[in-house]
């Protein structure tokens, strides 16, 4: 049975800090690896052949990869669009901060609020109210990605908490 003081989530976080941070580190590593993947054409020189096809195909499942919407430096561009790059960057930034702080349960309203700017930007560009801007797409993605990451982290913390607290989920 768990000690009563561990019923408090902050005490729980302090008590199981190593385990929680380890889980967050693993998740952050996976996000970093994912970001490294779509930045690969910019970091390393990849010829337009088999590896390029494989990488492009890999990320095409999760992004439309329209050339005009992808951030590019010189002749090379990322394998995902500016919005997706923003989402993953937001997750990465949240991941870094989450290593140093206790994440409280994220309200559903915050999650919905974070998706509103993104949704509005998609809608407005779709009806041609204004033209697509990589900066706006990146920023709206950044906000959404960081909140989504915190939701995932808090859910993983709940999983750990419940497993330790109740002995099961």
């Amino acid at each position, binding site marked *: 049975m768990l000690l009563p003081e561990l019923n408090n989530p902050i005490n729980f976080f302090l008590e199981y800090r190593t385990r929680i941070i380890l889980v967050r580190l693993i998740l952050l590593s996976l996000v970093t690896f*994912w970001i490294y993947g779509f930045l690969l054409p910019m970091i390393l020189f990849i*010829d*337009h*052949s*088999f*590896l*390029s*096809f*494989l990488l492009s*195909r*890999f*990320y*095409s*499942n*999760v*992004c*439309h990869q*329209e050339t005009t919407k992808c951030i590019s430096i010189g002749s090379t561009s990322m394998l*995902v*669009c500016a*919005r*997706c790059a923003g*989402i993953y960057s937001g997750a990465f930034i949240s991941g870094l901060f989450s290593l140093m702080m206790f994440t409280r*349960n*994220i*309200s*559903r309203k915050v*999650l919905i609020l974070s998706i509103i700017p993104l949704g509005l930007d*998609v809608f407005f560009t*779709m009806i041609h109210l204004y033209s697509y801007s990589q900066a706006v797409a990146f920023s709206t993605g950044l906000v959404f990605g960081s909140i*989504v990451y915190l*939701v*995932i982290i*808090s*859910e*993983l913390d*709940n*999983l750990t908490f*419940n497993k330790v607290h109740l002995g099961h*989920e």
Partner: protein
Amino acid sequence: MNKKYLSALVCGFGAAVLTTIPGVQSIGCCLLAPVAAVLAIFLYKKSHPDLLKVQTGTGIFIGFLTAVFAALFASGFEIIITYITRTSDLVASMPEAEKVIKDMKLGPAAEESMDVLKQMADEIQSKGFSFLYIFLITLTNFITYSIFGILGGLIGTAVINKRNQPG
């Protein structure tokens, strides 16, 4: 059929159908698989009115299952479409890729890998089927959809459990 599998099957199939519609992915982007997973958890919860809370493990499992079904159906649809049309994104991108290889003089290694791509494109154009191409699209579908399905499962569990919290 277990309702976990049924909700995952329905939402996975729906997501796979959406991937075949041109233009949908430019709106849905990376949210298609996670949204399907969230919807699958929602359906699972609806089919169990007595269930107070969806367990995180169950949510992850439903998300993963939805992704597996989505990958399976999406690959199937792509195989059928490639067979009927005898073309694919690989065939379409071949002339440009060939030009780049030729212009940049990338050496024998690049040319060898280009030959593999050419062989795949030729098989698709002549027979409408390339084993290597099918293997690659199925593999990439399974990996990416699974990752995003699991994430969708986690988010879905958090959202749906909060929705059912009193107060």
